[in-house]
C-alpha cells in the first residue's frame, strides 16, 4: 500500500509537472540532424552542439554574440609565458542532482577526452594542452601527466604545450565541458541515458525520441536559473529544410537553423525580417590537385581560379548573397584583421577571362589540345548548382568539364586519397583564429586534399604559431597566405553565411560569425 501510494504520488506530480510545462514558455527549434549522443565528448556536429551547449557549461561560456565570458569559472589568470592558465571556479555551482561541480570534474573530463579507448572524434581540438596529443596517441599511458590539474576543489590549473592566443576561445567548445565524475564512475556508459543524466548548464534534457526530438527543461540548480526567460526547448530532428520551413509557417517551429536558399526571396516578401543571413566564419572552396597533370601546372590552376566569376555565385546562383572569396582566411577572423587577397581580385571579369586564356595557352592548352577536367562534388543541391555554373564559366576557356557527384562518404574518401583533379570542399572554423584555416594547406595535413606543398609556407605557419606577439604572428600568417594564393594552392569561392529564420515572438537572437545562439539569451513573448 505504501509503495502504491508513493507511486501514485509520483505519477500525480509528474502529471502536474506536465500540466505546468504546457503553460511555460518553451521554444521549438528546428535542429536538423539526429544527435549522436548527449555526452559532450562524443559529439561532432553543430546540431549536437546546440543541445550540448544548452545543457552543459564549460569554464568559459559564450554571450549572445559568442564572445567568451566566465562560465563555471568566475575568473582566470594567465602566466607571463602564456603557458599556465589558473581558473577559479564559481561558488555554489552544482550538477542538476545537487552535487557540487568541482575542479576534479574538469580534470576527469579532460582525461576522459584524451583517453585513446574513449576514441573521441574531436579530442584533437584540445591538443594544445600539455601532453594531450601524446596521451591520446597512446604514447603516454599515465593520464595524470595531462596538463590539467585540480589545485583544490575550486581551483583548476591548465598547462599548454605552447602559448596559444585562442585557448580561451577553444574552452567554449563542447570538448571542454565537464562531466559528472560521481555519476560516470557509478553508471559507466549509461550515465547519459534520460533519467540518469545530470548536467551543469542552464537546462537539462528530460526526453529524447531518436529521430524526432530532444526536450530540455530548466535546470534549477544552475547559478543563473533565475534569469532564464525560456523554461525549456524542443530540438527537432528534421533534415528536410523545405518541410521545416512549412512547419515554421504553420507555427510549429519558432527557430529554423537553416533554410533553402531558393526561398530567400520569397521569405523576404512574405515573412519580412524573419530570415537572418549573416557572415559565418567558413570558406567554400575547390580543392585542386597540385601533384598530378594537368593541374600540377601553376598556370592552369591560376587560369581556372581567375575564370570563376565569384560575383554571380552568391547573389544569382545561390540567391542568399554569399560574399565572393578572394582570400583563404575569411575577413573578420579574430587575431587577424584583413587577410591577404589574390593580386587580381579587383580586375574586371572580362580581363580575368582574357588573362586566364593566355595562361592556358602558355601552359600548352588550346583548341588543338583542349583541357579536360573532372570536377567532383558531394551530393547536395547547392554544390550541384555551383559546379554546373563553374563548369559553364570554364567552357569559354576551352575547358571540357565532366561533373561527377558522389555521396559524402565516397567523395571525402576520394579527396583523402588524392583521387581528384578539382573537387568541392568546405571548412567551418572550429575556433575563431586564422590558424584554423591556414593549417589546411600545410604539407602532410590530412585535410590538405590537393597535396599542395610549399616549404616556406610550412615554416611561416610554424613560426607564427610559436610567436607570442599577436601582431607579428598575424604578419607571418599573412605572408604565408599570400604565398598560397599566389600559387593558387586551392580555389576559394565564397565565404559561408549563416542562415536562420527567427519568429518575431523571439527576442535576444543575435547574428554572429560562429552561428551559435544559446537558448539562455533568448526570450519569447506569447
Amino acid at each position, binding site marked *: 500500500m505504501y509503495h502504491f501510494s508513493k507511486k501514485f504520488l509520483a505519477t500525480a506530480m509528474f502529471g502536474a509537472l506536465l500540466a505546468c510545462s504546457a503553460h511555460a514558455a518553451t521554444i521549438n527549434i528546428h535542429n536538423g540532424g539526429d544527435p549522436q549522443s548527449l555526452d559532450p565528448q562524443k559529439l561532432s556536429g553543430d546540431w549536437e552542439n546546440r543541445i550540448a551547449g544548452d545543457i552543459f557549461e564549460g569554464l568559459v561560456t559564450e554571450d549572445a554574440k559568442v564572445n567568451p565570458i566566465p562560465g563555471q569559472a568566475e575568473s582566470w589568470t594567465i602566466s607571463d609565458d602564456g603557458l599556465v592558465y589558473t581558473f577559479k571556479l564559481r561558488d555554489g555551482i552544482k550538477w542538476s542532482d545537487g552535487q557540487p561541480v568541482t575542479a576534479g570534474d574538469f580534470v576527469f573530463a579532460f582525461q576522459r577526452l584524451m583517453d*585513446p579507448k574513449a576514441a573521441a572524434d574531436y579530442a584533437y581540438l584540445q591538443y594544445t594542452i600539455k601532453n594531450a596529443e601524446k596521451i591520446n596517441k597512446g604514447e603516454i599511458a599515465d593520464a595524470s601527466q595531462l596538463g590539467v590539474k585540480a589545485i583544490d576543489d575550486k581551483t583548476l590549473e591548465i598547462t599548454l604545450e605552447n602559448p596559444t592566443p585562442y585557448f580561451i576561445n577553444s574552452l567554449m567548445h563542447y570538448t571542454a565541458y565537464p562531466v559528472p565524475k560521481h555519476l560516470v564512475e557509478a553508471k559507466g556508459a549509461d550515465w547519459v541515458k534520460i533519467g540518469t543524466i545530470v548536467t551543469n548548464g542552464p537546462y537539462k534534457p528530460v526526453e529524447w525520441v531518436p529521430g*524526432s526530438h530532444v526536450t530540455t527543461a530548466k535546470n534549477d540548480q544552475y547559478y543563473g536559473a533565475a534569469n532564464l526567460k525560456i523554461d525549456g526547448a524542443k530540438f527537432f530532428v*528534421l533534415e528536410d529544410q523545405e518541410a521545416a520551413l512549412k512547419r515554421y509557417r*504553420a507555427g*510549429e517551429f519558432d527557430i529554423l537553423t537553416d533554410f533553402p536558399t531558393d526561398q530567400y526571396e520569397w521569405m523576404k516578401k512574405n515573412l519580412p525580417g524573419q530570415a537572418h543571413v549573416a557572415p559565418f566564419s567558413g570558406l567554400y572552396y575547390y580543392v585542386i590537385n597540385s601533384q598530378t597533370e594537368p593541374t600540377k601546372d601553376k598556370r592552369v590552376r591560376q587560369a581556372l581560379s581567375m575564370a570563376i566569376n565569384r560575383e554571380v555565385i552568391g547573389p544569382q546562383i545561390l540567391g542568399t548573397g554569399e560574399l565572393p572569396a578572394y582570400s583563404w582566411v575569411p575577413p573578420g577572423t579574430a587575431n587577424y584583421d584583413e587577410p591577404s587577397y589574390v593580386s587580381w581580385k579587383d580586375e574586371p571579369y572580362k580581363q580575368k577571362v582574357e588573362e586566364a586564356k593566355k595562361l592556358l595557352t602558355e601552359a600548352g592548352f588550346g583548341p588543338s589540345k583542349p583541357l579536360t577536367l573532372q570536377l567532383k562534388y558531394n551530393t547536395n543541391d547547392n554544390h550541384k548548382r555551383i559546379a554546373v555554373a563553374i563548369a559553364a564559366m570554364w567552357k569559354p576557356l576551352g575547358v571540357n568539364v565532366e561533373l561527377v557527384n558522389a555521396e559524402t*562518404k565516397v567523395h*571525402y574518401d576520394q579527396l583523402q586519397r588524392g583521387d581528384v583533379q578539382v573537387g568541392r570542399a568546405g571548412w567551418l572554423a572550429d575556433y575563431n583564429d586564422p590558424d584554423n584555416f591556414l593549417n589546411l594547406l600545410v604539407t602532410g595535413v590530412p585535410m590538405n586534399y590537393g597535396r599542395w606543398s610549399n616549404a616556406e609556407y610550412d615554416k611561416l605557419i610554424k613560426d607564427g604559431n610559436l610567436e607570442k606577439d599577436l601582431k607579428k604572428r598575424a604578419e607571418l600568417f599573412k605572408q604565408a597566405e599570400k604565398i598560397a594564393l599566389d600559387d593558387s594552392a586551392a580555389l576559394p569561392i565564397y565565404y559561408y553565411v549563416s542562415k536562420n529564420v527567427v519568429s518575431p515572438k523571439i527576442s535576444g537572437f543575435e547574428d554572429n560569425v560562429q552561428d551559435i545562439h544559446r537558448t539562455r539569451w533568448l526570450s519569447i513573448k506569447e
Partner: protein
Amino acid sequence: MLSYAFRRLLSTIPVLWIAVTACFFVLRLAPGGPFDGERSLPPAILQNLAAHYNLDKPLIQQYLYYVGDLLRGDLGPSFSSEDFNVAQQIMIGLPYTFTLGMTAFALAIIIGVAVGCLGALYQNKMPDYVLGAMILVGVVFPNFLIAPILQLVFGIQLAWLPVGGWGDGSLKYLVLPVVVMALPHAGRISRITRGSMIEVMNQNFIRTAKAKGIGPRLTVMRHALKPAMMPVVSYLGPAASYLLTGSLVVESIFGLPGIGRYFINAALNRDYGMVLGTVIFYMVLIVFLNLIVDIAYAWLDPKVRNR
C-alpha cells in the same frame, strides 16, 4: 499446417546466415568508411576509433566477433549513435513505423479493392475512368511530391492538420503521412483488382451466375471477389514489407521517428552494424509475411492446398 510453418521458419536460418555473411563482406568493398566526412580526422583519432570498434582487426576476425555476438542476440554498436546500439535503435523506431505502416496498409487495401471492384463493374464507363484517374495520382506522382503538396494544402492553407511531427501520436498527426504512404499501394491494388476481377467476371462460372439472374453486386461479393483476390494477395506481401519497414521520404519530410531512414542512411553512412541489423530485421519480417501470403493462397485456391 503448423509444422509446415515451423519448417519454413527453420529453413530461413541458413538463408539469413548467407545473407548476413554476404552483406558483411560486400559492405566492406564499398568505398569510403564510417568515419569519412566533411572533416577528415587526424590519423591518431582514426586509429583510436578503429580500435574502439575492432575495425583494426583482420576482416575475418571481425566477422567471427560479429557472428559470435549475433548468436548471443547482440546486434552490436551503431556508428551513428553513441547512446543506443543497433537493436535499441530498431526497437525504439519500430512502434512508430508499425503504427504508420499498419494503418497505411489497411487504408491501401480498403481503397484499392473498392476502387478496383467498381472499375471492373463499370468497365470503360465513367466511374471507371474517374476513379481510375484519381487513384492514379498516387501511382504517378512520387511521394516526395505528394507529401509537400498535402502539407501545403492541409497544413498551411486550410490549417486543418499539423504539417509534421509525431506530436502525441493522435490521429491528426497520422493522417497526412499515412495517406502519402498508402496512396501508391492503393493505386496498385486497385489496378490489380480491376484487372483480375474483369478476368474472373468473364469466366464461365460467373457467366452462369449472371445467367441465373443474380445481380452484379451480389455476384461480385459472393463469387468473384475470392478468386479475383489471388493476384492481389501476391502483391500484399511485398506491399506490407514496403510499408512495415517505413519510408525514408515520409519520415524525413514529416519529421517522424521510425526505422525507414536506417535502411538508406545506414548504407550511406557506412554504418556496418546498422546495415546488418536492418538486413536481419527485414529478412525475418519478409519470411513471416511470405508465410502469411502462402497461407492466404491456400485458403483462396483449394488446388494449391492439395500440393
